[in-house]
């Protein structure tokens, strides 16, 4: 069982190979450079270093979003095309879940992975490790970070915040949550593609043709169109 995992959903680019119970290769960068130019060469290099041919692969796992629309699309397009063309199964995993798994395994409270979504908004969810398994407590959503902080305050549990975008929202969470808030170390903010592979290993398989990113948001034009049509119906 050789798994290739791909995550290009945010700035960090991650590729890993999981061979049975061993992570035999992992590649991560966190630079503002084009995923489209870099992800296939990264896969090519990593597989070559691991002495693997594409035909050795038995499953593809991809971070399905949320994140940058373009970034998620690059990863999902490559993953579904590889899986389809090699005739092997494909599994999608929430990009936030991958981030939660990357730092929270031994944390006793709940985990809130953060991706910035501009204008004070974040993509986040709420996760918790329970007997070694990552449980989704609140599903992924788009929310203003101040509302999210208020929501977490009511739960009065310890919360671990993770993510490279945390810097933009740290004050909001510090201010409202006080001692409740725990912030991951900088070495833990990049989503680990090896965790992605592990999460995807036992997850259900997707229908490759119909598999699409989880954008969370509608395209702006679509949202406007729906709004305009609802107003038309009301009139």
């Amino acid at each position: 069982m050789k798994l290739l995992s791909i995550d290009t959903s945010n700035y960090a680019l991650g590729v890993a190979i999981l061979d049975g119970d061993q992570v035999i290769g992992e590649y991560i960068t966190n630079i503002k450079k084009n995923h489209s130019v870099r992800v296939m060469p990264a896969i090519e290099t990593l597989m070559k270093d691991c002495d693997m041919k594409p035909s050795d692969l038995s499953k593809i796992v991809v971070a399905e979003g949320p994140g940058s629309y373009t970034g998620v699309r690059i990863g999902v397009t490559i993953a579904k095309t590889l899986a389809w063309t090699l005739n092997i199964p494909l599994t999608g995993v929430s990009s936030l879940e991958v981030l939660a798994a990357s730092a929270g395994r031994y944390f006793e409270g709940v985990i809130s992975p953060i991706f910035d979504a501009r204008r004070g908004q974040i993509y986040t969810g709420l996760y918790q490790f329970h007997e070694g398994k990552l449980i989704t407590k609140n599903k992924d959503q788009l929310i203003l970070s101040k509302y999210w902080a208020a929501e977490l305050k009511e739960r009065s549990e310890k919360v671990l915040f993770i993510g490279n975008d945390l810097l933009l929202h740290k004050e909001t969470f510090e201010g409202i949550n006080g001692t409740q808030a725990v912030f991951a170390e900088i070495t833990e903010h990049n989503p680990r593609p090896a965790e992605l592979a592990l999460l995807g290993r036992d997850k259900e398989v997707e229908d490759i043709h119909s598999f699409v990113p989880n954008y969370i948001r509608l395209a702006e034009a679509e949202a406007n169109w729906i709004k305009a049509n609802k107003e038309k119906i009301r009139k």
Partner: protein
Amino acid sequence: MGEFMTNKDQLIMGIETSCDETAVAIIKNGREIAANVVASQIESHKRFGGVVPEIASRHHVEQITIVLEEALNQANISYEDLSAIAVTEGPGLVGALLVGVNAAKAVAFAHGIPLVGVHHIAGHIYANRLVTEMTFPLLSLVVSGGHTELVYMKEHGHFEVIGETRDDAAGEAYDKVARTLNLPYPGGPHIDRLAQEGEPSISLPRAWLEEGSYDFSFSGLKSAVINTVHNAEQRGEKIKPEDLAASFQQSVIDVLVTKTSKAAKEYNIKQVLLAGGVAANKGLRKALQEEFIKLPECELVIPPLSLCTDNAAMIAAAGSVLFEKGIQSTMALNANPGLDITIHN
């Protein structure tokens, strides 16, 4: 390998996602269509009155593996039979291009097949090679929603732009005029249809530009049409839309045909190829045919309608000659929305 092929057959897969069509095709020996699949999104974009880039990109991800599979089934081949994969790298909508480019890279990597990046306009020009063999030197008139160009070719892969639009593309002018006449999107075919029913009785400008230039300009014409409509409205008069469509179309076609014919003579052109989506325009086809009957030493080639609009067969056809010239892309191939057409020697 299928029985109908010999070992020498060159099979190229083409992938095209530069705008609102997800397309995959397979071409044999540069000229024969083995498969040609196009999934159009036009119905989805109609409600917005134009192509919405983010929505186009989303549809491409939904369609890409389905279209790939259908093309392989149609051609009845497997990956081992492919000589190369050609993909549109630009110009076009960046998010849309990225889906095709990354899908192409994934297939190429998975099966160790050479990859060739293709310019979208080179594709439109090479659609003609699926109809008839090219004779050099040739001249291609490329007219589409984003392009109005005269491209000179002295041999395969040699794309030299001798004239281009300085403002709007002809197709863009069609869409804007269609909007002024309250015609549904996409406007081009509606204007063409109306024009057949009207008379070119309204005087509209023709931008010839400076002496000897093969460049185009359509923004003045577009403004003149809009002004004509507004002035008539203010005077309480009604303009027959058929006549306005006919006059507008006549003005566009006059400039396109005259410049093409002049360049054909100056460059001693043996073959003139019509390319791009606007090549579907009946008025343009007819005017070119009438003009080139007068130039018997120059063959006029107009591809069938299905090959004029965006498709992947044309990308594979262009990719075929580039591949034979030894041109290949790496796994770092990117989408380039503003890609210039280049001369490959």
